[in-house]
């Protein structure tokens, strides 16, 4: 049984009946305990924590033990590691008491006891200190001692130090060996054996939401929790992901709607979640969903072997090519593929054909280094027809040509025929413009048609 802190403030206590709680808090949400969802959350947390060590195991009473002996150096010491573990747990939407000690059983005892007492994150690094700390714990903190609490209390045995002072043969005869074994393991006097968690060969996790959500953006926290699990799985299996697939499942039953799928393909394989979180955040913000979401599924669609980057001694200015690719992916995720462009010039005489820009996700053609007459930096999307004033094209002021003409005549083969004479023209404001005169239509002696096609910067 559990209650939120605001409920506890309102006077809700453990052991109350439903009617009593409703009398105190008429709008309280009551949830039935769902054992299988608890187990799912716990195994999800264990998967996510695999990013810190390959050796994780379940201990009794919703406790996960991690062997971090080999990870301390990598994550920058015990404090930094504990901070990261707490951050990951928070990302999963759970709360945890984190403790560390030379023995796994001892750490588990301390964490459980401190969690009940509301203490925070005890850290013990040496065996004598751990033993002193354990000595002060009440007997009830040891799960194996729970069946014998009454007679232990009757003989005045209150804490673990008292329990250890009792003669071993007597305890063994009256109780069972599990209590003594647990005590020995916690004090570091016996070997501990753990069944380390095995990771499945493929990753597909589903989280059912407690409420139906209407906006895709609200699913972000659930997606983050799933991504944390994905990270743990990737690290444990030494893989990197190149494509992930998020499904937002909608209401089933009569009005069944097919799940909304977000496919995310990455140019650079990754095994850390920061970039994935940013990309999915942008995608979710863009997404319009047709029906409320009830569950979120995350699948690692394509993976490959992890290749850790080799760090160089002197970092290059401007970051690595991977940084640049990550930036492009982020821009594409929010703005769309068609709005992030790179030049891919075409070998064509017509400027509007030659100046081709394609999405950064497509391969680009190189520019051939052909000497050409001056070309403006800016090309108008659509040429602007210029009015004539005193037989000169007019754009803000009368334009006078300052260069010899360049004749461009091409495109008869695909119906986009252009017959143009281009000039560079200067206005009274000293700006230079790229204008052209249409030659077709000029044959019968009507006024020439002038167009503005570019601006020199």
């Amino acid at each position, binding site marked *: 049984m559990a209650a939120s802190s605001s409920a506890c403030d309102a006077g809700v206590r453990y052991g109350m009946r439903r009617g009593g709680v409703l009398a105190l808090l008429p709008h309280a949400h009551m949830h039935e305990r769902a054992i299988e969802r608890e187990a799912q959350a716990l195994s999800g947390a264990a998967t996510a924590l695999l990013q810190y060590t390959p050796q994780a195991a379940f201990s009794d009473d919703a406790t996960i033990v991690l062997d971090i002996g080999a990870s301390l150096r990598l994550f920058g010491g015990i404090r930094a590691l504990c901070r990261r573990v707490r951050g990951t747990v928070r990302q999963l939407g759970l709360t945890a008491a984190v403790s560390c000690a030379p023995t796994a059983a001892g750490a588990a005892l301390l964490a459980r006891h401190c969690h009940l007492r509301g203490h925070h994150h005890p850290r013990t690094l040496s065996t004598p200190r751990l033993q002193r700390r354990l000595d002060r714990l009440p007997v009830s903190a040891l799960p194996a001692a729970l069946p014998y609490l009454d007679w232990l209390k009757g003989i005045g045995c209150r804490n673990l130090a008292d329990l250890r002072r009792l003669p071993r043969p007597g305890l063994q005869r009256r109780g069972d060996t599990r209590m003594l074994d647990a005590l020995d393991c916690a004090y570091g006097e016996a070997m501990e054996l753990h069944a380390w968690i095995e990771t499945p060969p493929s990753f597909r996790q589903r989280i059912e939401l407690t409420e139906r959500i209407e906006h895709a953006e609200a699913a972000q926290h659930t997606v983050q929790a799933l991504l944390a699990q994905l990270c743990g799985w990737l690290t444990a299996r030494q893989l990197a992901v190149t494509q992930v697939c998020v499904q937002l499942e909608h209401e089933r039953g009569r009005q069944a709607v097919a799940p909304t799928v977000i496919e995310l393909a990455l140019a650079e394989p990754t095994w850390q979640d920061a970039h994935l979180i940013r990309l999915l955040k942008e995608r979710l913000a863009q997404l319009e969903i047709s029906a409320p979401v009830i569950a979120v599924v995350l699948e690692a669609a394509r993976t490959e072997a992890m290749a850790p980057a080799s760090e160089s001694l002197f970092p290059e200015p401007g970051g690595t090519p991977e940084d640049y690719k990550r930036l492009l992916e982020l821009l594409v995720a929010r703005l769309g593929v068609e709005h992030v462009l790179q030049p891919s010039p075409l070998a064509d005489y017509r400027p509007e054909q030659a100046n081709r820009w394609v999405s950064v996700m497509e391969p680009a053609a190189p520019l051939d280094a052909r000497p050409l007459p001056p070309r403006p930096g800016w090309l108008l999307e659509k040429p602007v027809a210029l009015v004539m004033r005193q037989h000169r094209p007019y754009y803000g002021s009368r334009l006078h040509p300052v260069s*010899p003409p360049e004749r461009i005549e091409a495109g008869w083969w695909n119906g986009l025929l252009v017959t143009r004479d281009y000039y560079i023209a200067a206005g009274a404001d000293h700006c230079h413009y790229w204008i052209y005169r249409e030659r077709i239509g000029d044959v019968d002696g009507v006024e020439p048609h002038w167009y503005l096609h570019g601006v020199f910067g």
Partner: protein
Amino acid sequence: MPPPSLDIIDSPQSIHSSLWRASQLARGGARCLDTGFAALSAELPGHGWPTGALIDLLLRQPGAGELRLLGPALKALAPRRIALVQTPHAPQAIGWRQLGVDATRLLSVRAATSADAAWAAEQILKSDSCAVLLFWQRNLRKESVRRLHLAAQGGNTLFVMLRPLSCAQDASPAPLRLSLTAAAGGVDIGFVKRRGPQRDTPLFVSLPSLNLLHHASVDRRTPAPVAAGSVLSELVG
């Protein structure tokens, strides 16, 4: 307290590099990049474009010569990338190459709203993987400008925001604000704001010519239509 000695008043930069007298240009502190125009560099604090800070270029009209003015700096930063956000027209790759900028270095980002454009600019600044960011913006909220300036300070990007001259009235956190007006053979640069003395007269900088007679040897001389037009108007008039 004894009066401070005279040479300290004369050169406050000897106390700290970010101190300067109102009559002299600031020096030190910012990393700078040579502009390629000696006359302009001499008038700028740090003798060049500051990187990792917002530079405001206020254009009287688009095409006032801003590309040719920035050209040497863009060329000096090769082969690193140049990001163009919200360009006024489509950039023409051949035209940029003639300015000395290789087309493969260009990245053009277009956004539907100004909020999206500001977001894109901020991401580019934060990632620090482009050497130059040129950002065209008409009206941007004051908070967004400040935010972009802060993002620029985190990196080493040459960040130039190009806006119409009407924005000169608005307050801006940019340490350097210049106005550009096209002039015959170059550009007139007005110093709206700089870390240094106020300068009221614009500075004329002669820009490299457009190489107008590039193919003169191949082609005919100056064309008929102009001559014909002028003669005709005289006849009619």
